[in-house]
């Protein structure tokens, strides 16, 4: 586990569980994707993609809520993935998180799957 939202007070608003499934890097952030935690999370994603983890699934099931800062991090990750000829897939959106994607008109722009299994299959597809 890697604390991604560590602040000066030692408080962590998101932690990320990293694993690998079938050649796909799976990230499971847990907590909030807010103004504090999103930047370190996005930095970690970009770092992993640059290091060669071009097939990536971000499972959002443990996310309590996402604000515009979270979308900023996801947009930066998407750009890095595209630049690296990679594939970035999202899954595990709760009803409320999904609603935020809808309000931001991001539902059709990101590759989004219902389950982790579908997400892994999509991320590794040619």
């Amino acid at each position, binding site marked *: 586990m890697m604390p991604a939202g560590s602040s000066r007070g030692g408080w962590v608003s998101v932690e990320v569980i990293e694993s690998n499934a079938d050649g796909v890097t799976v990230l499971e952030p847990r907590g*909030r994707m*807010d103004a504090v935690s999103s930047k370190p999370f996005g930095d970690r994603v970009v770092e992993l993609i640059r290091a060669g983890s071009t097939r990536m699934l971000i499972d959002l099931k443990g996310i309590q*809520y996402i*604000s*515009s800062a979270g979308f*900023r991090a996801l*947009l930066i990750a998407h*750009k890095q993935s595209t630049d690296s000829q990679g594939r970035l897939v999202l899954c595990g959106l709760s009803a409320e998180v999904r609603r935020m994607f809808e309000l931001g*008109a991001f539902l059709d722009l*990101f590759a989004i799957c219902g389950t982790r299994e579908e997400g892994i299959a999509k991320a590794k597809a040619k």
Partner: protein
Amino acid sequence: VSDELEFHLVNDLAAMAGVVEAVEGFVAEHRLPAEAANALYVCVDEAVSNAIAHGYPEGERGEIAVRLHRRADGVVLEIEDDGAPFDPLQAASPDLTLPLAARPIGGLGIHLIRSLMDEVSYARRDGRNVLKLTRKLATR
């Protein structure tokens, strides 16, 4: 159960954890529905981080107040800061039709606030910015 919550924090992102916890407590006490709770969390994050980013010159200490008020027909969220005059509601709406690679992120926060809340208003009062956001709820 109090219908009012008032929380003060300094203009530092590191101080936001406290206000989030306070809002979580208010949400639990009032058993607010998940949709309204999500709206409050996102709007607090957008409005407070906005005030911190736009209101103060580098190194200047400021104070931000976050108030929640449960009314019979909804919940009112007020964010007040002593930073430079700044009306976030003047921000242009983002173009949501652009492809992902061309999407600017600026303006998304205020777009989310407008979408999540039923009433939004800004006032400059006694040298402070006051953003008032209301989310309607079924009458209790």
